[in-house]
């Protein structure tokens, strides 16, 4: 029983990381229709930026987040302006391939700037073990789960009540109609990239604090695809739920099946999910089936 609980708990922790990354994906997909293959690289880039900031400024956790997130949002805005905005009006496939190109560029750039050696990065979080019930947690793990909960709440409130959030949903529902009623679609696209980069910063910071800061974090972006698909590509809150589910499934399959199942359990799940419900658990049913 303890083994099962432990697996579920650690699954929820890695699932929270997937969920945060997946929310970044979903936010961009929802408002621009583009799957951002560079999301994992964005997470890695912002984690490295946080690392450099923390090395120069020596901040504790909360101030570090407060400094990193705006800088990351600015980075997101710049990437959108330089790489994505000029492609506006091209077929979606072309824009998606541009994000693939952007991903490869960022990966090389990060190694050239920061080197390929992994770093230990505690992000100002202590490492004394906390017991919850019978299960031991590192504080960084609890921060990760709490961050997911906070970001989900914030995004839900933003999309539900704020002026820009409503505009974003309008753009997602029908871009032309949104434009007709006076929503600046290009500004919404830029905002989606900024918010997504902000979420990526939180994900990158906490992922690096939980594991290591290494130039292979980008792979977490691909590992989060199952979460995005499970949640439905255009559902921001669903992506978070999908992340938790995938995290737990991966851990359970590793615990009870072994053989490195952790690496591929998520991918098997999405192939099954896409065969049964091609629009994910919470996604809108707009996928043509031919």
């Amino acid at each position: 029983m303890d083994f099962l609980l432990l697996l579920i708990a650690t699954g929820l922790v890695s699932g929270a990381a997937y969920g945060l990354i997946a929310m970044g994906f979903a936010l961009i997909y929802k408002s621009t229709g583009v799957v951002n293959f560079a999301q994992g690289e964005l997470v890695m880039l912002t984690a490295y930026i946080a690392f450099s900031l923390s090395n120069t400024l020596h901040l504790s956790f909360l101030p570090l987040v407060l400094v990193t997130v705006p800088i990351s949002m600015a980075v997101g805005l710049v990437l959108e302006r330089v790489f994505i905005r000029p492609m506006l009006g091209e077929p979606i496939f072309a824009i998606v391939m541009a994000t693939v190109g952007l991903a490869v560029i960022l990966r090389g750039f990060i190694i050239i700037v920061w080197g390929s050696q992994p770093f230990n990065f505690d992000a100002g979080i202590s490492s004394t073990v906390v017991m919850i019930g019978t299960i031991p947690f590192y504080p960084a793990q609890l921060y990760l789960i709490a961050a997911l909960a906070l970001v989900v709440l914030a995004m839900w409130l933003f999309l539900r009540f704020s002026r820009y959030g409503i505009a974003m949903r309008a753009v997602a529902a029908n871009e032309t109609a949104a434009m007709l009623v006076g929503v600046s679609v290009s500004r919404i696209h830029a905002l989606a990239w900024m918010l997504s980069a902000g979420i990526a910063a939180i994900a990158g910071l906490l992922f690096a604090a939980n594991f290591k800061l290494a130039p292979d974090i980008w792979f977490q972006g691909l590992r989060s695809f199952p979460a995005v698909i499970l949640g439905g590509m255009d559902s921001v809150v669903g992506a978070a739920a999908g992340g938790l589910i995938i995290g737990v499934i991966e851990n359970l399959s590793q615990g009870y099946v072994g053989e490195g199942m952790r690496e591929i359990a998520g991918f098997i799940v999405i192939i099954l999910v896409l065969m049964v419900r091609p629009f994910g658990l919470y996604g809108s049913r707009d996928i043509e089936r031919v």
Partner: protein
Amino acid sequence: MRTGHFKESPSQLIALSDSKVVWGWVGGLLCLMLAMPYLVGVYGLTLVVSALIAVIGAVALNMLTGQTGLISLGQAGFLAVGAYANAILLTDYAWPVWLTLPAAGLTSAAISILVGVPSLRLKGLYLAITTLAFSFIINHVILYAEALTHGPNGVFVKGARMFGFDVQKGLPLYYLALALTVATVLAGLNLSRTRIGRAWLAIRDHDIAARVMGIDLVRYKLLAFAISSFFVGIAGALMSLQIRFVNVDVFALILSIEALAIIILGGLGSVAGAVLGAVFLSFLPEGLRLFFALVADPNSTFYTNYVYEIRGIAYGAVIVFALRFKPEGLIGIWRDARKYWSNWPLAY
């Protein structure tokens, strides 16, 4: 200026090209390729063989992505299947090469049908993500099915002999690769003119309309997967012959991205474009090396330290620039140049 281009008999319609000039150029290119080993050194020949393998892979991916419109991010997986099938059959089962090459292609095609079936309901990006998932699963299976694949140890490829020649190096490998490349390009060109090729184009342009016209989507999508993967498998087999040691790490995700970069740069949907793109991107690392040797300070270790990163950035930049400034690709530049030449001095 040409005023008309008339076809007067059915045989002219069937011919790949009715222009004597085109055939002359193709013949010249073929003679050049046959004489290539005597023109470039041993190192140059290795590069040319890699380029030929890339051409086979690109023409194959072009059938799937360019002509049928099914985006695949799983090329590395199919390459791995072909390479492993070839290596295992050669080394562990001592099959002759002329059998292992088609066997590698067929294994890859069989696996691709396995991938294709669940992908039939998906389009566009969902399909891309599914193929990506499959390529991870394939790598994982190779890593853990140790009894068959030797798992993380990889397989050494040895004993590949054909007509008494060792086809793992030098001239025999080059001519084998050249023959297979010519066969693949011919197959690609001809397939696009058959019933199958036209069905693929129809599916790419509008799948619902294609279905309404009576094209069996299941059949032709699976055919696209199978035929494309057959050639990818052969490219993988050639790769295993050239590098002599296959390991899962060789078939990383970057290979799939490289393959997509090739056909985007060359021009989606065009066989000639795929060939151009493959040749261009295969020699890009070499060009970068020469560029850094010329420009950089000779004592600087920047290039040697970051060779993979620089290569990666170059691929990424090529994708981004090609998409932004010339979505029709290299073949588009060639067509523009040809049009300009034949219409000169008129603008159009």
